[in-house]
């Protein structure tokens, strides 16, 4: 058995973290993968601060959607990552390779699209609040 469904992925697939909706999101972005029928929605809320210039961190994050084990675990892992790093400038720099690494690194070429879907949705959401 190839290692694609290792414990980390199965864990996040079965118990997705930060799954759901936010009360007052600053941005909501849906991204679909037409060829798979997958749909992932990210919701983010920026950390409040009196000075708009200083709104540079994500305060809250949630996501929901339908997808395969890879895109589901990917969204869950990514939301956890966002909570660690928080800074918008850093989140927007997560690369596709970084996303694959987050999933444990063993993603076959055919599944890259599944792995990238949550990242695309998240980074679009981030761009929407950054303006």
């Amino acid at each position, binding site marked *: 058995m190839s290692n*694609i*469904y290792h414990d980390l992925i199965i864990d996040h*697939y079965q118990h997705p973290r930060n799954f759901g909706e936010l009360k007052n999101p600053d941005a909501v972005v849906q991204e679909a993968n037409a060829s*798979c029928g997958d749909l992932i929605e990210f919701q983010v809320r920026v950390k409040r601060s009196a000075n708009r210039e200083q709104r540079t961190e994500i305060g809250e994050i949630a996501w929901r959607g339908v997808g395969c084990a890879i895109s589901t675990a990917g969204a869950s892992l990514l939301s956890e990552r966002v909570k660690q790093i928080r800074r918008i400038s850093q989140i927007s720099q997560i690369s596709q390779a970084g996303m694959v690494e987050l999933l444990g690194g063993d993603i*076959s070429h055919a599944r890259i699209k599944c792995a990238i879907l949550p990242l695309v949705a998240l980074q679009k959401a981030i761009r929407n609040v950054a303006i």
Partner: protein
Amino acid sequence: MKFINLIKKDFPIFNRQINGQPLVYLDSAATSQKPQEVIDAVVDYYWNHNANVHRGIHTLGDESTRLYEESRKTVSGFIGAKDPNELIFVRNSTEAINLVAYSWGRQNVNAGDEILISEMEHHSNLVPWQMLAERQKATLQYIKVDKNGKLDILDLKRKLSPRTKLVSVVHVSNFLGTINPIKKIAEMIKKQKILQSRIPLRGTKNKRFLQPLSLSSYPLLLVDGAQAVPHTPVNVKDLGCDFYAFSGHKMYGPMGIGCLWGKREILKNMPPFLTGGGMINTVDWQETTFTGLPDKFEAGTPNVAGAVGLAAAVKYLQGIGMENIRKHEIELTRHLIASLDSPARNASRSEAGGSARRRLLARNDGLLINILGPKNAQDRSGLVAFTLSANSKEIHGHDVAQVLDSQGIAVRSGHHCVMPLHAKLGLAATTRVSFGIYNTKEDINRFIKALNLIPKIFG
């Protein structure tokens, strides 16, 4: 008929191991594997005969031209065409359908006209008509699929009208496996033509005009035969259609070669699709006259090696016999459906949502399998699409396919280029098993065994 285990030996790809296991290939509806005879024919062409066709005087040019035209004869004979020149070589079914949409469609379909296709069409028999309808301001209508996954023939009858210029339907659905009653559809269209011929033109007072001078030429019938030609005997004359499209690569031939068959009288009156070399009579600075059939529709250097390989595939199929192939695939389909069914001692059945869902099979091993399409193996071709839940959780088709791949088993997952019907049935991604002549019951048993890993992994 050759023993089935011997047929596998004709296909060199089955020497491959996939993830440490001998390959079980259950994705022939996407593309079939190629027998040694087809590979040899292509190699022999390039080794010994390669030259451009219809152009040179030299020996190789002559041989190449003859091989190309002999291939046309072989393939057209295989589908029951009287005249080899009614068979146009193209790249695939998609190109064949586009040829009709661009050439015949732009000439014949006008504002207010209707094009009638079915809800179970592959995108390649849907998008070209959407584009044509948009361009010509015509409307695209859909024949409904009923809850058993069959074409609603009464709906077809309702929707045929004097404005219908074309009916285009799939012969065998690549998603539901349904075999459509093409002959019956052709008869209904003929009745419509007779009816139409008696309709007086608007403003005509003289009742004499009620008598038809000639039969109405519309609607025409195009059949997408991509999934039919490899699996069942096909005779275009017997079917009574006007156009028939199919792909070489799904019938054990090479990729990049496919065919459009059309009735001579219709093809003759159609303008060229692509233009350029190889299809002209005379060209001067301002004007060009075109050659006759089939060259008019084969602009540029054709895929001669592909045609030669396709002819070899046809001879291979004829050697086994299409009736035998059909019988073998019915047997496999029956075994597959029964295998998906058998542990269902406590089966719960449901016709959820009036969809084409056949039944939900609750297996005692934690798998819940929902088979799509007609109930009876006789009514369907050798392919079965399904959704699957493990311990009450629906497992995405890609995850199913990935687990099977780890065991050396190739299946297809996704929407199979039938997105609108997936949406109508409320399905995201399904898994599809499809057979070729080389498959055996042993392949199915290995597939079922691998399927049982799923609840263990995602349980």
